[in-house]
């Protein structure tokens, strides 16, 4: 691999890491209530901790390798602990690791304010093993949802030694967003609503955090999309030119689709609610980025604008569905990631400059995209349901009603995010580190509780 390309891949992996911590943590944290912002942010930070380790142990091996099992996943023991990987091979692991982390972290928005931290920590490794790693293998590792022989696309339109029309998912419309969106939907229904959902106001507690988070997500997304280039089967010089051409297009498409999505979301708000909101702008950013993710290498910049505008408008309408159907997808993982992921994945069938219906290339690409999206949804739903029911039966998902009402930050982490009234009843008690063997440290109520008492 070329030096410049290697440097860009390191940068890209780092940028994707920035998306989860702190980008997504801030985006979600600001939208949650002030009594649960720390728990919300911890769900992202802990996803990084758990999945970073799991990915090195068996995540990479389950996703990529030479020992395919039924086109669904790779042998988790082939390169367990990265046995047999070395040197530049670590680069691919690093980049893909960050994708697994953010996909799992995305789910947390659907189940905000009410889930035991221990249940989340158990959920993370099992879910990526059953849902994320297999889907990554199927789509990017030459598995069932790629253009491989006997893959889903090949079964529909058989070609010469593989599918006639290969599915397109550049950076994770199915693997990341549809997957996380469905998982969020299944868990939100399984775990149930927050106490007082639909009755008490549950408005965002700090939209400046959310806007900072959305901005960081956008910036990090350049690593996510522009780093997802895969070298072709050609000479080094040709590949270098291919890389320059492709990354230029992908960067621009990622940006303009997102710009258009902001406009689309705000327009819907202006017409429907009378005012364009900052939360709408932040949400539109994410909706646009989600939609362009699978499509960023397949569309023209004008096509990207159309896709982004449609995604922004549709997601703005879709976030209301939870109130109609009565499930508490707290921070709209379904409305933004599932709907945005579907718009992007299926939109390719219309807008791809090569293979798209609007470019006179018929329906085949569209059919393949729809079928692949459906398969990913079913796989993710079943996998999530298995993990979700398992945890519900063995340890239970929810904190007690009292803890939920009082605030999950103090109940689960022993902290409160904001000390806005210092000096009101908070006293320092015996420090655990002071080494006293006689005095047990007393549980300290957070300062804000003292103020309310």
């Amino acid at each position: 691999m070329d030096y410049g390309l290697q440097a860009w891949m390191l940068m890209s992996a780092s940028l994707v890491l920035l998306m989860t911590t702190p980008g997504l943590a801030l985006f979600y944290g600001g939208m949650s209530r002030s009594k649960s912002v720390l728990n919300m942010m911890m769900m992202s930070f802990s996803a990084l901790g758990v999945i970073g380790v799991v990915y090195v142990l068996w995540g990479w091996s389950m996703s990529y390798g030479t020992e395919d099992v039924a086109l669904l996943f790779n042998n988790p023991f082939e390169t367990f602990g990265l046995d047999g990987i070395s040197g530049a091979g670590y680069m691919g692991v690093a980049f893909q690791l960050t994708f697994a982390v953010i996909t799992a972290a995305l789910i947390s928005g659907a189940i905000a304010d009410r889930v035991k931290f221990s249940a989340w920590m158990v959920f993370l490794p099992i879910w990526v093993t059953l849902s994320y790693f297999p889907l990554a293998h199927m789509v990017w590792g030459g598995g069932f949802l790629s253009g491989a022989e006997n893959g889903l696309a090949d079964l529909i339109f058989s070609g010469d030694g593989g599918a006639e029309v290969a599915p397109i998912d550049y950076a994770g419309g199915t693997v990341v967003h549809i997957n996380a969106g469905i998982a969020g939907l299944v868990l939100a229904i399984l775990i149930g609503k927050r106490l007082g959902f639909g009755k008490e106001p549950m408005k965002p507690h700090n939209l400046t955090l959310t806007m900072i988070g959305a901005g960081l997500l956008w910036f990090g997304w350049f690593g996510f999309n522009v780093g997802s280039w895969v070298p072709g089967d050609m000479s080094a010089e040709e590949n270098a030119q291919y890389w320059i051409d492709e990354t230029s297009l992908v960067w621009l498409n990622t940006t303009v689709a997102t710009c258009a999505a902001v406009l689309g979301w705000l327009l819907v708000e202006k017409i429907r609610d009378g005012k364009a909101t900052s939360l709408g702008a932040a949400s539109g950013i994410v909706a646009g980025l989600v939609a362009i993710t699978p499509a960023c290498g397949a569309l023209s910049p004008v096509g990207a604008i159309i896709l982004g505008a449609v995604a922004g408008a549709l997601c703005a309408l879709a976030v209301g569905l939870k109130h109609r159907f009565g499930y508490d997808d707290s921070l709209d993982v379904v409305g933004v990631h599932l709907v945005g992921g579907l718009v992007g994945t299926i939109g390719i069938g219309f807008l791809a400059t090569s293979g798209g219906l609007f470019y006179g290339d018929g329906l085949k690409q569209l059919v393949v995209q729809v079928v692949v999206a459906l398969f990913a949804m079913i796989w993710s739903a079943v996998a999530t349901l298995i993990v979700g029911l398992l945890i519900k039966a063995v340890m239970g998902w929810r904190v007690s009603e009292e803890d939920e009402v009082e605030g999950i930050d103090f109940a689960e982490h022993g902290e409160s995010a904001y000390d806005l009234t210092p000096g009101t009843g908070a006293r320092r008690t015996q420090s655990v580190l002071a080494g006293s063997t006689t005095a047990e440290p007393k549980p300290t109520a957070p300062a804000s509780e003292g103020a309310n008492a």
Partner: protein
Amino acid sequence: MKLVTAVIKPHKWEDVREALETFGVTGMTVSEVSGYGRQKGHTEVYRGAEYDIALVPKIRIEIVVDDADVEDVVGIVVKTAQTGRIGDGKVWVTPVETVIRVRTGDKDEAAL
């Protein structure tokens, strides 16, 4: 002595303070409070979901004054805090038994 308590619109607070200072009021206690009266709250929309926000932010001013000044002080507050629109707030007066200045131990009128 009387305790004058006024709950007013936050953007009127500077005007009220200035007018009271001009009149000769030397101190007061001010807090940011929230509440609602007949106007109720307002609505906010987040991702299409409409919330009734019952509590509206207000400023509460508390001043202990000499009996002779009560009418004037109340008059000044009402006059300067008034916009004529709903939600302007309220002023009420309660009797105060005794006042002590912590620094000197001065009592009642001498402590004001």
